[in-house]
Structures are given as structure tokens and as C-alpha cells.
């Protein structure tokens, strides 16, 4: 059997101008929790929408659950679950009615519909609110309902587009617990986008980092961190610096590399805490005035910086997150007007 998700040179150009996804290739193995990590506007939602048969491809190809997403988009939709970045539950229906509708649309057998819905409601802890209109739900309840809707037909592959956006840390942890449980029970393959580095690090088996529509690195979180070659000591100077500084830093024992980044130097070294005293001493001797020294264990922040040459950033302009927030505001306004 081929991998449940295979993307080959995916390209998406919106309105002939915006190159949102620019030649993305990756594959996700059976049963894997695959994280798609990138800042706002990186092209995560665009990729998800192409893989789920909802958005036309400008170029490339993809297969999901053994089906070509372009030619078999209808059947792809049947085999997958999708939780959108924005809330899409019907506010005028109750939680249960939302699930009943989804069960009918995704062809959950009539015999098991009721028990499936009951057990999902209980598992997602919305049983008490099951017969309340969704417009009275809190953000966390809505997210859990969306997840329930997404998995009602036990899909082989589940796509989650920033599922924890707008949740507090507790809500986020809770949501991930449900997803992990589900994956364990059903052996689902999960493709999840996030711009929270810590989430990708903690919960994903493998991640791809996407930036400006391109995948810049793929691997397990520890592989990616290992590629950094240890800790990173960042040195800030009070007086510019110069070529001499780099020579001094390079000369310290164990230093793997020194790169200048804005007005600071990033020094890679296996054991950062041992380097710092010597570094301070050496700079003192060479008359280099330090403004600050900091030590970072390898984290995905560092990985991102390493592969893109930039700090983990949030792009400007109207991103999908902004749109989600905007839509939320509109919905709230309508909700208020309706009540």
C-alpha cells in the first residue's frame, strides 16, 4: 500500500499572482502524526485545501488515501476527515443536529448513527450541551464539536488545520489529548498544521517546516534539532564587533560554527554551558565588549532560524488567521443580532 498522503511538487498560485504554495513535496506514512509547521501566510491552509479536494491545483499532483485528489476529489472527501481552521459548525443547529447532519452526509450506517454520536459527544465532553444551539458554545466546545464532526465516519486520514487556534493552553492540551487517543484507538493517519512550535515538537512524529510556500526541512523533531549540532550560544556586543570577533569565537574549543545574525553572533557548540565562561574570558582578553550572552537548547525556533535564516516570524497582511478572527467577529455580531 502506498503512503496515505503523497504530495508531489504542489503549486498554488491565487489569481495568477499570489504564489502561496511553491513546489511542495512530502509523504506521510500510515498511522503517523505529521505536523505541517509554518508561520502565518506560509501556505499551510492552501496545502490542506488542495490535499482535501477543495481547492484546484495550479501544478503538481497529490494522492490521499490511495486516490488522486484532482480526478477523484469526491471519493477523497468520503475517505478523509477535515477540521477547518475557522469554525464551520452550524450555529443554528444543536451539537447533536450538527453531528446527525454530518453522519448522513458521510454515510455513517443508520443502525450505528445514534450510538456513534452518543459516544462521540461523551468522549468530547459535550454531552451536557448536546441539545443546545451551537451559537451558545464556548470556543473550546466548538473546536471539540468540529473534531467530532471530522471523525464521525472513522476516516482513514484526518486533516486538522490549526485545530487549537484560539484555545487557551489548557484547551490546547485537552484537544491534543483527544487527538492522540483517537489515533491510538483507530490507527488514523493525522496531518495537522500549526504555527505553535511547541505543539509540533511535543505531539508530532514527523514534521515539515513550510515557509513562503516551500518546505525547508522535513524530519522527526529530534532529527531536526540534531541537525543543529547542539546548543546555540548567542552573543551580543555593545560595540559593533568586526572580523576579529568571529576569529576569537571560532578559536574557542568545541565551537562548530559561528554565524552573524543581525547584530549578534550565533555560536553552535555541543555543550553551551561549558563554553560560556571561556567565551566571556576570551572576549575580555581581546577587548571585545559584551552586551549579553544567552544560551539556547536546540528547539524548533532554532531549527526554523537555521533553515530559513530568519527568526520565526508572523507575516504581515491579511492571513487566514486574520480572516478566521474576522469571521468570528462577524458571526458574533450576527449571533447577537439574532438573539
Amino acid at each position, binding site marked *: 500500500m502506498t503512503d496515505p498522503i503523497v504530495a508531489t511538487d504542489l503549486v498554488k498560485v*491565487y489569481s495568477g499572482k499570489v504564489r502561496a504554495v511553491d513546489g511542495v513535496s512530502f509523504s506521510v506514512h500510515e498511522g503517523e502524526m505529521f505536523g505541517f509547521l509554518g508561520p502565518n501566510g506560509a501556505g499551510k491552509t492552501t496545502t490542506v485545501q488542495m490535499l482535501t479536494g*477543495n481547492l*484546484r491545483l495550479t501544478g503538481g499532483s497529490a494522492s490521499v488515501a490511495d486516490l488522486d485528489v484532482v480526478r477523484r476529489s469526491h471519493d477523497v472527501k468520503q475517505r478523509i476527515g477535515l477540521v*477547518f481552521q*475557522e469554525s*464551520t459548525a452550524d450555529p*443554528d443547529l444543536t451539537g447533536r443536529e450538527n453531528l446527525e447532519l454530518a453522519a448522513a*452526509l458521510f454515510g455513517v450506517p443508520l443502525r450505528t448513527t445514534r450510538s456513534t454520536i452518543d459516544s462521540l459527544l461523551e468522549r468530547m465532553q459535550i454531552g451536557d450541551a448536546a441539545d443546545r444551539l451551537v451559537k451558545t458554545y464556548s470556543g473550546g466546545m466548538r473546536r471539540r464539536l468540529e473534531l467530532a464532526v471530522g471523525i464521525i465516519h472513522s476516516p482513514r486520514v484526518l486533516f486538522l488545520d490549526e485545530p487549537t487556534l484560539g484555545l487557551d493552553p489548557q484547551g490546547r492540551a485537552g484537544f491534543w489529548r483527544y487527538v492522540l487517543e483517537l489515533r491510538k484507538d483507530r490507527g488514523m493517519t493525522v496531518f495537522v498544521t500549526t504555527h505553535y512550535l511547541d505543539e509540533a515538537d511535543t505531539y508530532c512524529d514527523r514534521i515539515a517546516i513550510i515557509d513562503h510556500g516551500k518546505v525547508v526541512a522535513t524530519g522527526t523533531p529530534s532529527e531536526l534539532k540534531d541537525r543543529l549540532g547542539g546548543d546555540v550560544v548567542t552573543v551580543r556586543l555593545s560595540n559593533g564587533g568586526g572580523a576579529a570577533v568571529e576569529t576569537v569565537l571560532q578559536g574557542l574549543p568545541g565551537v562548530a560554527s559561528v554565524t552573524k545574525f543581525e547584530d549578534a553572533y550565533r555560536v553552535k557548540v555541543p555543550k553551551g554551558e561549558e563554553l560560556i565562561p571561556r567565551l566571556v574570558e576570551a572576549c575580555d582578553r581581546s577587548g571585545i565588549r559584551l552586551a549579553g550572552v544567552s544560551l539556547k537548547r536546540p528547539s524548533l525556533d532554532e531549527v526554523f532560524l537555521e533553515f530559513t535564516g530568519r527568526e520565526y516570524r508572523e507575516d504581515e497582511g491579511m492571513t487566514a488567521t486574520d480572516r478566521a478572527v474576522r*469571521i468570528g467577529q462577524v458571526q458574533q455580531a*450576527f449571533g447577537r443580532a439574532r438573539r
Partner: protein
Amino acid sequence: MIRELAALTRRELLRLARNPQAIITSLLLPILYLILFGQAFNIGAFFAGQPGGQTALLLALRGAPTYFSYFSAGMTGFVAVTATLFIGANVIFDRLFGILKRTAASPATPTAIFGSRLIAGMVQPVGLAFLVIGLAVLLGHLGLSGLKVTAPFSLLGTAEVVLAVVIISAMFASLFLAIGFSIEQPQSYFAAVNAINLPVLLTSAALYPWGTMPAWFRDVASYNPVTLAVNVLRENLFQGASAYYPYGPGIYLLGLLAWALVMFVVATLLAGRALAPRD
């Protein structure tokens, strides 16, 4: 397919039931027309007492006994338009709320998605049309001007009236759904709807006495779907009215059906396009 259609229709009906404002506002207009306009606008008064007045009145109203009778039959065609207006707007709000996107991302076929909205969208205009007929008859019994059904009851006639109401509702429901599926902004939707709504009503024979229209106007009005529906009603409600119409109700029903089919096809195409993978 049947299950999808049923589930989606249920959703539309639940939502309709939970937002009664839409029903109440669409009730208001025909009621005001019946108890104010219909009562005050009494064409019969001009003909009364004049030699040959009654004949002239019958000619002007194509066999309807009173202007109110003539006009209240017209109102049933009128409400098919006004009570379907909002269903295209619902499509736009559903798009704004992400609900349309979610439905399009499910395996539901565009036919089921469109069909459910069409079916649910017809409930209100059809109900309202018969309410208007009932209310118009009732007003006559309360000492006001009312609808006088002078034709004897016939099964075929009743069936034709019901069909006319159903088909005209389906036609306008399709039209407004077509607009709703192809426009993104609520403001543009209401602008488009207003641009269609009034001209359609004002070029129909729903309100004007046929006999007072200039010949060119009649030519235009003859093809108007509202006129076609209203003709079916008037021929069946008023004794002897058929003498004033060149064709029987069956022909008008066919014409109406042709309109409805065209709208239906256009609307399904536009809905299919709106629900296909986005660009």
C-alpha cells in the same frame, strides 16, 4: 442521495423554524396589501351605475367579479416572489459563516445541496400563497372587500391552482438561489434582487386591471411568469373567466413550467460551479 437530501432539507427547515423573523416579515407585506391597498383601491366604484358599467368592469378584470377578487388572486403570485427573496441571502450568509465550505467539503453532491435549499425554500411561499387566499376569502366574510370565488369547486381546477403556486415558487426560489450562489456580498445580493423584484412585479398582471393596460404592456405582461401563474388562478377561481383568456390554464401552466425549468437549469449550473473545488 435521498438521505443526503433529506438531512440537508431538515437542516434548512430547522433553521427556518428557528428564525421566525423571516416568516413574520414575509407575512407582513401581503397582509398590509390585503387590508389596506385592496380595501382602498376600489376600481369598481368608477364603473358602478354607468350604462354598461358591469360589462366594462368584467372586461377590465377578465371576468373577476370585483377588483379585490382580481387583485387578491394576483397577490398569491406576488408572494411567491417576496417570500423567496431571502433564500438566496441564506446562501450568502452560509458562505460567510463557512457552512457552505464545510458542506462542499463533504461528499454531498451539489444536486443534493441545491435541491435541499430549493425544497425548503418553497415551503414558505407555498404556505403563504394559500394563506393569502384564505385571508382574502375571510375578509369578505368580515364585511370588508374579500375574495369571491365564483367558480364551482373542481378537482382539476384545484390541482391547477396548487401546481401554479408550486411552480411559480420553484421558479423564483431557483432564480434567487442562482443569484445567491454566484454573488459573495450581501449588499450586492440585495441590489441584484431589488433590480429584479420590482420590474418583475410591475410588468406582470398581478395588480393592474388587464383592461386598463396599453396593448404593448399586455404583450410584455403576457410572458411574465407571475402573469402566467395568476392567469391559472383567475381562470379557475372565477366563473366564466375563461371567456376572457385566449388560452386555457393548461397552456399557462406549460409556459410557467418552461420558465421554471430554465431557472432550475441555470441555478443548478451556478450552484455546481460555486460548490466545485475553488480556484
